[in-house]
């Protein structure tokens, strides 16, 4: 069942009255808050599922974004479906789910099935959906940013009000020349684009102090002539607010914004990485205390927006949906070998004519 139907079963009646002091919801309804949590839970569930399937030998590879759930679910809530465009990177499972990607589409990608959006061609987590407005990307960091800028240019060029591009990177990708070139162009042309940097402090094994001398990426924005915002990446509501603010600015012709969301990567880079080789268990355990998922669960329960039973029911629903998606995708066929040759060009071009 979708999250809408679900919400009516789990919400408590007097939810808004019990809002704790200092809990700023930035205009989000109870329904939206629960939806954010659901995205976070599904994000974590599907990522864990990827790891499980890899350890079972069923899929060769999965990537890990534990720690990113809040920033992605929060930011996704600011995305307007059917209008905005998302140009993500490969750790944005939560954002993709949040803008409408269904769990089965995620599993089809992990299993490399024919019905996957890329026909089983792309590495997992390189989701793309023309319908949802999620652009196709490669594994090369920052290569997608000029594309995002170009899309934003097209929007402005065609006078498409109320549309904006949301594009994301990690901390590592901000060292790329193409990050610089994209930021600069977007600023010169006041494009409707938001650059969201999910700073989890690690680029595979490269810590922040080897990646840059000034750890505050948002401070670079002024040099380009655009606003720069820093936000707690473990707080989904704050991330929602910052992203909404920036997207609204973009949509109304106010130009681009750089948002830096500070979070942390709890797991290794992917199933092929062993983070024990480059960081201590103590560091990871210490940072785990800020895990945004249990934190937001507690917040919603304490605010009376979810009951404890409601939370459990939500988790069960997420697991059920994940299981159903897994079974469904696993049963689907692989692409046929002939599929290799399709779609190189618009027509059937051979190199020798």
């Amino acid at each position, binding site marked *: 069942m979708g999250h809408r139907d679900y919400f009516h079963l789990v919400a408590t009646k007097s939810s808004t009255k019990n809002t704790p002091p200092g809990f700023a919801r930035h205009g989000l309804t109870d329904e939206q808050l629960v939806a954010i949590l659901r995205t976070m839970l599904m994000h974590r569930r599907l990522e864990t599922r990827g790891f499980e399937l890899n350890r079972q030998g069923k899929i060769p*590879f999965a990537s890990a974004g534990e720690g990113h759930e809040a920033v992605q679910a929060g930011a996704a809530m600011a995305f307007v479906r059917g209008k905005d465009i998302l140009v993500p990177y490969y750790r944005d499972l939560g954002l993709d789910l949040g803008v409408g990607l269904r769990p089965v589409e995620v599993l089809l990608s992990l299993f490399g099935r024919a019905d996957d959006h890329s026909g089983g*061609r792309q*590495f997992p987590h390189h989701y793309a959906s023309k319908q949802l407005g999620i652009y196709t990307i*490669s*594994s090369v960091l920052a*290569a997608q940013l000029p594309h995002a800028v170009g899309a934003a240019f097209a929007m402005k060029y065609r006078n498409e009000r109320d549309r904006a591009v949301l594009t994301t990177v990690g901390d590592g990708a901000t060292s*790329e020349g193409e990050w610089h070139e994209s930021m600069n162009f977007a600023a010169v042309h006041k494009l409707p684009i938001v650059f969201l940097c999910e700073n989890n402090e690690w680029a595979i*094994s490269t810590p922040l102090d080897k990646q840059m001398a000034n750890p505050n990426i948002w401070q670079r924005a002024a040099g380009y002539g655009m606003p720069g915002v820093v936000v707690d990446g473990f707080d989904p509501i704050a991330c929602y607010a910052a992203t909404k603010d920036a997207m609204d600015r973009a949509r109304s012709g106010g130009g681009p914004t750089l948002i830096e969301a500070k979070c942390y990567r709890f797991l290794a880079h992917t199933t092929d990485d062993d983070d024990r080789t480059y960081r201590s268990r103590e560091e990871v355990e210490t940072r785990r205390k800020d895990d945004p998922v249990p934190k937001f669960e507690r917040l919603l329960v304490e605010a009376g927006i979810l009951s404890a039973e409601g939370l459990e029911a939500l988790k069960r629903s997420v697991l059920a949906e994940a299981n159903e998606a897994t079974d469904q995708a696993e049963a689907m066929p692989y692409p046929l070998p002939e599929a*290799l040759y399709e779609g190189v060009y618009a027509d059937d071009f051979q190199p020798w004519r």
Partner: protein
Amino acid sequence: MAVTAGSKVLNNVEAVRETLYEAMKADERCVILGEDVGARGNVFLITKDFVNEFGAQRVIDTPIAEASIVGIAIGMAMEGLRPIAEIQFADFIYPAFNQIVGEAAKTRYRSNGEYTCPLVIRTPYGGGVRGALSHSVSIEALFYHVPGLKIVAPAFPADMKGLLNAAIDDPDPVLFLEHKKTYRLIKGEVPDGHYTIPLGKADVKKTGRQLTVVSYGLYVHWALDAANQLESEGVSVEVIDLRSIRPMDRTTILESVEKTRKLLIIHEDNKFGGIGAEISAMVAEEALFSLDAPIRRLCAPDVPAMGYAEPLEHEYMSSPAKMADAMREMVRF
């Protein structure tokens, strides 16, 4: 595997690792730079613990910035160091294309010899590891066209060591291609101590009389499997491991073709404009009348890359069985 005295059995990762280690020990001008090469020890563990021994100044974890990994290495080389730059996967080399082709390859030439660029760029390439479009490509065809560059692609551990030493010693820029699927898959005897193998020399890995097969990288191993299978069927195939792509060894190829009178080129890269095209042209120009059959190239189809899904990867890549079929056909011609 029987081991000769004064050598040990290593896989390709170990061969590269040992060679780099010895080079770093022997010459303080050597520095290694790339993404995740220090604390992580490279994503295949090739430089594991190097940073502990040689220090962070010599084993540099760079930011994510391929163009400047090569560019900064060029500057180091121009200023007297011996940098060994790493591009984490060959698929990530494209942002550095200008630095390699427009700068490194031209430094000596454009300054009339005043400035030189003794640089090694190492990168893992090739597929068969479910790497899809961004962790599987072959890039040699993009670069071998460029005068001023040297390119090697060894397939055996002993060749890895000898050619890497030669590349490090070389006063000009060398692109050192390591097939990632062979990293742990391929083991071989590697002589102890320092030695070099000259660039521009291929190696006959199996002698034969009825067909010359030229290949490199992972496919040399599969071609050998296929040739050994044919041997048991009474068919004699000679397999040449190219090892060096620019410069390429014409003598070894032509000598073999004179003998067998048939040439089959097998490579993992796309067919159109691949290495096989240059080899075919050269042999046609210089030994046309020594051929009893048209030259044939067994290569990847001309699609952007192998897909992630197994059937797509399978279809894109060759196999010992497919190679054996091609060899039989050639011999029967």
